[in-house]
């Protein structure tokens, strides 16, 4: 695949590709470092609720985020820290949401990976798998109605999420409306503990593309270059009006479902299989072998990522947590239609 991308003679292009690769790598690295930090804070018992990481899925995720432009729509799923950074989500959003800071986009109301900024095209997933895709469809259809065309919507989902009725209805809907939607499936071979043979019986989930009249693409989820290329092409096609696209990438989650889970249901054989290498390491090796960068520089980047992470965490740790007395206990935007007086005064603040 390299030949295609860095074809001899296309020096300018190959320079651009190398730069894209490096940019992607730095984002993956930042995501990995941030994820590692969340894991350690979790182990220290300082995070409320679960922690969900994207370890091993950064190549696909970053490719998704990088393929998009300002004005596009991104609906990340639970393992898309890298894609979020690539799309432009500030590190602070992640940290603030995990800590429940009132300065974060979710203001302590929702947590961990359930964050976003819908008005900036970054959707805040609900937990119910499959439910975000039709929302992206609605955004894209509206832009068409508003004659604001040219943007693409990209929704991430897992192999397990593809079994939901919600995902089916939305993929079919996108096909019918010929929307510029790209659905990126991270087939990490497990949904929580459930292996894909208990999840679906088709050969590969790309077989679903035909079922909905979408264009299907396969990618190697451990290979950054391939992910950049395949997702990039899918996004380009969608943007060019070629209708909805389905990208399926195979890979392995290199962590538990959440940090509470040791993933002992994934066999050592699977974990050590050559095709399940860590995408970050693979990318690093490639950078060094191509001499696009040096070990020193990579080390500086890692330190930089570490510093940004630490800064964000120490900033957020000094930020206010929600005050139930100051909280507006109101789910409606229309204040005068909210019902009051039925609910108790706030209770004690201790856990």
């Amino acid at each position: 695949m390299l030949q295609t991308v860095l074809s001899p003679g296309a020096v300018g292009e190959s320079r651009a590709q190398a730069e894209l690769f490096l940019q992607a790598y730095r984002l993956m690295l930042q995501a990995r470092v941030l994820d590692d930090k969340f894991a350690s804070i979790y182990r220290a018992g300082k995070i409320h609720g679960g922690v969900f990481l994207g370890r091993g899925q950064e190549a696909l995720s970053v490719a998704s985020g990088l393929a998009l432009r300002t004005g596009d729509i991104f609906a990340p799923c639970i393992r898309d820290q890298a894609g979020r950074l690539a799309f432009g989500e500030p590190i602070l959003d992640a940290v603030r949401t995990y800590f429940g800071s009132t300065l974060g986009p979710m203001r302590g109301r929702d947590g961990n990976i359930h964050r976003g900024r819908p008005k900036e095209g970054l959707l805040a997933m609900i937990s119910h798998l499959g439910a975000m895709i039709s929302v992206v469809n609605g955004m894209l259809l509206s832009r068409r109605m508003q004659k604001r065309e040219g943007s693409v919507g990209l929704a991430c989902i897992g192999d397990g999420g593809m079994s939901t009725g919600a995902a089916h209805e939305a993929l079919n809907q996108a096909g019918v409306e010929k929307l510029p939607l790209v659905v990126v499936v991270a087939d990490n071979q497990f949904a929580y503990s459930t292996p894909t043979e208990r999840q679906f019986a088709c050969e590969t989930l790309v077989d679903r593309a035909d079922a909905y009249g979408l264009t299907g693409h396969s990618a190697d989820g451990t290979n950054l270059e391939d992910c950049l290329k395949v997702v990039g092409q899918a996004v380009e096609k969608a943007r060019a009006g070629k209708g909805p696209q389905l990208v399926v990438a195979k890979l392995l989650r290199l962590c538990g479902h959440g940090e509470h889970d040791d993933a002992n249901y994934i066999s050592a054989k699977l974990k050590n299989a050559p095709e399940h290498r860590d995408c970050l390491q693979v990318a690093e090796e490639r950078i060094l072998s191509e001499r696009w960068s040096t070990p020193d520089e990579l080390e500086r980047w890692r330190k930089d990522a570490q510093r940004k992470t630490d800064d964000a965490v120490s900033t957020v740790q000094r930020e206010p947590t929600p005050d139930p007395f100051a909280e507006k206990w109101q789910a409606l935007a229309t204040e005068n239609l909210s019902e009051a007086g039925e609910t108790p005064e706030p209770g004690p603040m201790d856990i």
Partner: protein
Amino acid sequence: MSITYLEAIREAQAKALAQDPRVFIYGQDVGAFGGAFKATKNLAKEFPGRVLDAPISEDAMAGLAIGAAIEGMRPIIEMQFADFSTVAFNQIVNQAATLYWRTNVPCPITVRLPCGGTSGSGPFHSQTMEALYAHYPGVVVMTPATVADAYSMLLEAVAIDDPVIFCEHKFLYYHLKADSLPTEALPVGKARIARVGRDMTIVAYSAMVHEALAAAEELKSEGWEAEVVDLRSVKPLDTDTVVASVARTGRLLCVGEDFPWGGVTAEVIARVTSEGFGLLDAPPQRLNAKDTPVPYHPNLWLAHRPSARTIADAARKILRQ
């Protein structure tokens, strides 16, 4: 001119489409066909590209509407029958209803639910769903009982910055007529005294308002004056108007067509007894449908739901206490 409840719904949508370019309609067969009940008749022709047929995918219909709302649109989605909204339930209560609270982005969608029993419709084309949705935070649930309210409340539903569950009653579609469309309306969230009376309060909403009014007429011939309160919306629920009525009458019967457990009638009685306990001269009572699915055969159907007769019976028992 004479206009039906159903025509009022069509007219409200026509007006919403005409006056606000952000409005569009999405639902099964709502386009050229004009909808299973013709509530969108001719709208696809009058507003090209803004009245769209959906696949049989209620979950994705609701999801699409939510996305449209995020982009500043004001979608109206029509469920072919309220009963089928169970399939969109998750998107409505967990995505639409939480969006503003979670992200600060309002979700102005209107979900039109053709609700309620009609003869011969059976368990899956007859349900009323107001309690189901009102239970959840983040939604407004409207239950218009009159042609005027069907019109004005639907326009307000579209204008409101929150998800509105618009429960339109199929039994009223063709039967209920008015001379003209209203030019003004009570604010959303305010109940209406549908009939003034001093002896007891009957609280009802949607089609049951008419059964309650008929019951009140029957009671009048026996010398009782029942006050009938039409809730208009069940969330928010206008406790003040109900309590004020009970303050005048001292007696309360609450009537709903929904299943008996929980729901509007329980909520009304819980509120009145909590806030206006001392006003009651007799135990408050409620009358709901029976605790079985809605039956198909008219003999059973008529016995399953409250009617003028059973309301009057229940009212007499309260009045004699």
